[in-house]
């Protein structure tokens, strides 16, 4: 089933066009990432499909229209910051969400255990740390077991431990086969959680498809030797190497299809008569690739 269909959605703030003729489709069961730098229109887009921002033109449809105007009750969403009543505790706050969504028997304990807030369930929201607030927001999005979950920058402002916890939670949810729409400017996050991705910049859709198709997952190795031009020619003609690019820092970046031990690469170079002065396996530079995609447009 088609969960969300966005058709030519446009939002202008004065002269600035925050979202420009954006169209995309999310199918049931997808973990859909909306990737883009800060200010690219991710939150504005989600705000429009959640009815808090009025679009200037374009349209969107939830669940092929089967719930009509009540569609948002079937969507659990966390937009930007976690927004709760600071003078109420976790249970009371979730109670308000359940009331709005008209959930008959909400399982708050289960949800609060899932996000590690069970021990603090009777503390007021205002006493929570940022990470706890974010986790409560995830629990609140899941109240009533909605068909779609929307997360907007779910790890924003968290410390590394908090980021890891949230990502683990999200991965667990994604694995259950629930439809997830997640906006983020962090590629790594999208790659870990999502199956599909749309890249947007300045409100324009640059690319969309499966994560594998959009983001290359080459194995990267940096090498250097005395005779750099010679080394480049040697590797460029090697069929085991997809691409050999000379970097600005004076090293050669090799793209390989599969993971290869460093020793093997050293051996290949040596057999072509080059002694490597530098050999480093580069952690897949997704951020760099993302920057490349967004910069080229």
């Amino acid at each position, binding site marked *: 089933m088609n969960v969300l269909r966005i058709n030519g959605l446009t939002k202008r703030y004065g002269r600035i066009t925050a979202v420009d003729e954006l169209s995309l489709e999310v199918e049931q069961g997808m973990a859909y990432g909306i990737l883009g730098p800060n200010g690219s229109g991710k939150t504005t887009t989600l*705000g429009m499909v*959640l*009815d*808090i*921002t*009025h679009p200037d033109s374009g349209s969107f449809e939830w669940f092929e229209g089967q719930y009509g*105007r*009540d569609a*948002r*009750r079937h*969507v659990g*969403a966390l*937009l930007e*910051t976690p*927004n*709760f*009543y*600071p*003078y*109420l505790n976790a249970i*009371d706050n979730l*109670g*308000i*969400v359940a*009331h*709005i*969504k*008209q959930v008959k028997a909400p399982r708050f304990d289960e949800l609060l255990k899932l996000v590690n807030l069970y021990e603090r369930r009777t503390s007021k929201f205002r006493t929570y740390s940022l990470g706890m607030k974010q986790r409560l927001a995830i629990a*609140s999005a899941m109240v009533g077991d909605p068909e779609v979950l929307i997360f907007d920058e779910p790890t924003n402002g968290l410390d590394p431990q908090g980021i890891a916890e949230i990502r683990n939670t999200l991965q667990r949810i994604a694995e259950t086969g629930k439809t997830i729409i997640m906006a983020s400017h962090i590629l790594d996050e999208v790659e870990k959680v999502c199956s599909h991705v749309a890249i947007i910049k300045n409100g324009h859709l640059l690319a969309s498809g499966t994560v594998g198709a959009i983001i290359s997952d080459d194995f990267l190795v940096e090498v250097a030797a005395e005779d750099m031009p010679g080394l480049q020619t040697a590797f460029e003609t090697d069929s085991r190497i997809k691409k050999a690019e000379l970097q600005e820092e004076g090293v050669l970046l090799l793209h390989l299809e599969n993971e290869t031990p460093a020793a093997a690469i050293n051996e290949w170079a040596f057999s072509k008569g080059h002694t490597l002065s530098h050999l480093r396996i580069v952690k897949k530079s997704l951020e760099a690739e993302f920057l490349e995609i967004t910069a080229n447009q």
Partner: protein
Amino acid sequence: MLYLLRLEWKKIRKLTSFRLFSVCYLILLPAILLTGLRFDELPPPINTNEVFFMFPTVWQYLGYIGNWLCFFFFGFLSIVVVTTEDSYRTMRQNIITGLSRQQYFLSKFYLIVVVSLLAALYYALCGFTIGYLNTEAIYWHKVWQHADYIPRYFLMCFGYMAFGLFLGFMIRRTGIALFLYLAYIMFIELILRWGIHLQIVEHRSMHFYPMNAVEDLVALPFLEMADEFTSKYGFSIYLQPWEASITVLVYSALFLYLAYWRVTRSDL
């Protein structure tokens, strides 16, 4: 409707200002009237403090005290329940969670109706109790002589709260909205009426301002007797109750419509 009212109850039940304002109202309404016990002799035209507690005049004096209390506590409450949801961004979250904008507005509207009803019922309860205990011979026609004060009291409280809701939705900032609420009722409208309107036209149309009409629903009793104003300007200092009622209903409908318009139109 019950769905939205129960939602509001979940929200305000633990809200400090709601608890504080309610307790203050519940205590102060009878308490202030009862301080009248300490004044045995009063200047004319009142003469004796008995009128404070006797049927039918208890309705007028208790009502006038309630007028001030509703103006402060329930007017403030209606602003706070709107602006805090804006600053906590919970209104936005309510919409995201599934409430429609119309429902959100209606939940606040129902809230002020119910609070005004409860305030008027408590006023009726206090009025009956105090009147019953302090009137030697109870004639039912005396008891009911000014009982039209009860629906007027409800409308008075509703008028303040509708204005508060309007300011809350329009201005969105608690401090500024509270300040404007106080400043408008206590100064701005007085300047408009007495400083500008009356100087331009000496006509009783100067009374048909929104908050003046609200105040006149349950007005200070003995000013009616002071006829200096009437002889000078040729019209009474107060609106007739039915005039005040219609004026309040018209202005409240306008305020609520504008607030509704704002809620449905604005980006959150």
